[in-house]
């Protein structure tokens, strides 16, 4: 285990991440509304030692009841519409909605129209837009942090 911890320390050193300044925090609830799983991989990668999004006070929380931001991936399928809206309803106010990736933003979605509920923008008001197919972990971090500044 000590070898792993040393390895981790080396990765952290090489990544040269800036120190977190200012006491802020943002709790994020992620909902996959029909993505291809690439956005999930990249969102999960923001917790990897090379990015360590938590240093900015950003946390993925288990319940929408603890969340400030609903982070949505995918084009919103008919079968995910209800769960997505229920998660939003469960959030305390003030709350924000972030669209992660081109599918959630409704760009060039590949799907049979009858399997999709509606573009995310028509279901919920979107405050933060992070384009990309998928957006890289850096782009996700940048997009969420920019959104945090506007909140």
């Amino acid at each position, binding site marked *: 285990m000590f070898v792993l911890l040393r390895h981790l320390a080396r990765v952290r050193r090489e990544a040269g991440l800036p120190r977190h300044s200012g006491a802020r925090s943002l709790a994020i609830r992620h909902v996959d509304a029909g993505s291809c799983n690439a956005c*999930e*991989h990249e969102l999960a990668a923001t*917790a990897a030692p090379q990015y360590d999004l938590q240093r900015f006070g950003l946390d993925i929380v288990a*319940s929408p009841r603890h969340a400030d931001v609903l982070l949505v991936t995918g084009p919103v399928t008919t079968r995910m519409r209800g769960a997505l809206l229920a998660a939003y309803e469960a959030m305390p106010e003030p709350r924000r909605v972030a669209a992660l990736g081109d599918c959630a933003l409704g760009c060039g979605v590949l799907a049979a129209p009858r399997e999709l509920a509606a573009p995310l923008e028509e279901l919920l008001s979107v405050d933060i837009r992070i384009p990309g197919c998928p957006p890289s972990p850096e782009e996700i971090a940048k997009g969420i942090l920019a959104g945090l500044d506007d909140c």
Partner: protein
Amino acid sequence: MSRPGAEVSEVAAPSWRRACADRVAEGARFCGAYASEPGGRRRWTALFAVGAETRAVWTPVSGAALPTLVDLIPAASWDEREAHDLYEIDFDGHEPLRPLAAHPEETDAWTVPVSGEGTYDVAVGPIHAGVIESGYFRFHVVGERILLVDPRLFHKHRGLERAAEGAAAEAGLPFAQRACGACAVANSVAYALACEAALGLSLPPEARRARTLLLELERLYNHLNDIAAICAGVGFAPGNMAFAALKERAQRLNRELTGHRFLFGSVAVGASAFQLSAVESDRAGGALREIGEDAALAWRELCFAASAQARLGGVGELSREDAARLGAVGPAARASGLAIDARSASPDLWYGSAFAPAGPPIASGDVAARLELRGAELVVTLAILDELLAEPIAPAAEAAGVGAAGPLGVARVESPRGETVCAVELVGGRLARVRLRTGSYANWPALARATAGNLLPDFPLINKSFELCYACVDR
């Protein structure tokens, strides 16, 4: 050599069961069944793997119900349920024919009825606590012990196969690729090979090398991810972080080589879309050797992390018999002692006939075996990559025609999760049907089986040890 089309035999509905049972008796392995409607005539097709060949049997669908295969071939269960929901085909003898892609409101409509003293249900999903794909599980439990789990997937069903219909072969590729980000190369290569088989095309050796390189790059970052996920599943943070960091390095290399961290856009139909100069391949080979050395160090530490290892043995056991009966493929099947690997019979790729899949030291079929297997496969994958990168990848010549076009093209490709089967039917050069039956799709019933009898808090760990996608099941 690519074979023009696939060998097809047509049988009438009354002979359907007999014809499929005969294939199995001859030693063929069932690898998918799907409905299609080329030229307005509906039919039901089953696919069987025999070495590198895939043989198809189909029967016309009239209004009447078709005889089921589930008692002869339990692995056909999800295929029949899907065809019932999406193509309105009834199966005589498949009782109850529970919905799979359709999502009725009433729980009783899709779950197995469980009753008895102290039994109750735990509902989980479709949204999960972490950053995970959407899917719903209904656990029937007594205390903490799981009696059985009913997975309800298809929450992410986007109708990709329907949406691709009518497109030209090349234009259909994005649909196969976007079915799943983490299996994008496997799905794209399976689709491209299926189209080429239907069109009677064969690609030159350079294109085969390029595709094999991409497939192994995909396996590398996925296996690193899956090892990290198992560490996370037992709360072993140092292991999780070490392998997550290695996965990140592998994906950065992907971007250097193809411009995309998930290798999107690097496969084409009837052509090669990827090349590497001598300098590039030399550099990539060096980067991979460094990743390999660090992965070997981290793996060794993981092997000696007693607290993590103690959580893996005897959890989520899948017996060899169940793996075979339920049609498991990929690491899940190999960890249970079934030596199924599409790479050992892939004449259209670079692997060669000498390829032998890695096996775990003990094929105990549990979480420990599935982890061990991935560790062993990492070594094989890195060796294949090293060999492929010893020379540059030249731009490939045009595909050559090797035979007449057929009504059906089928290809089987080993994804990080197992054999992915793509069937393509072309009518007048346009897609009449695409069916993508991924390794994840084949393995979900086996995962549900391996879960039964375990503790509820162990499910996330068992789930991570299979690490199946939802996106390429749901499509």
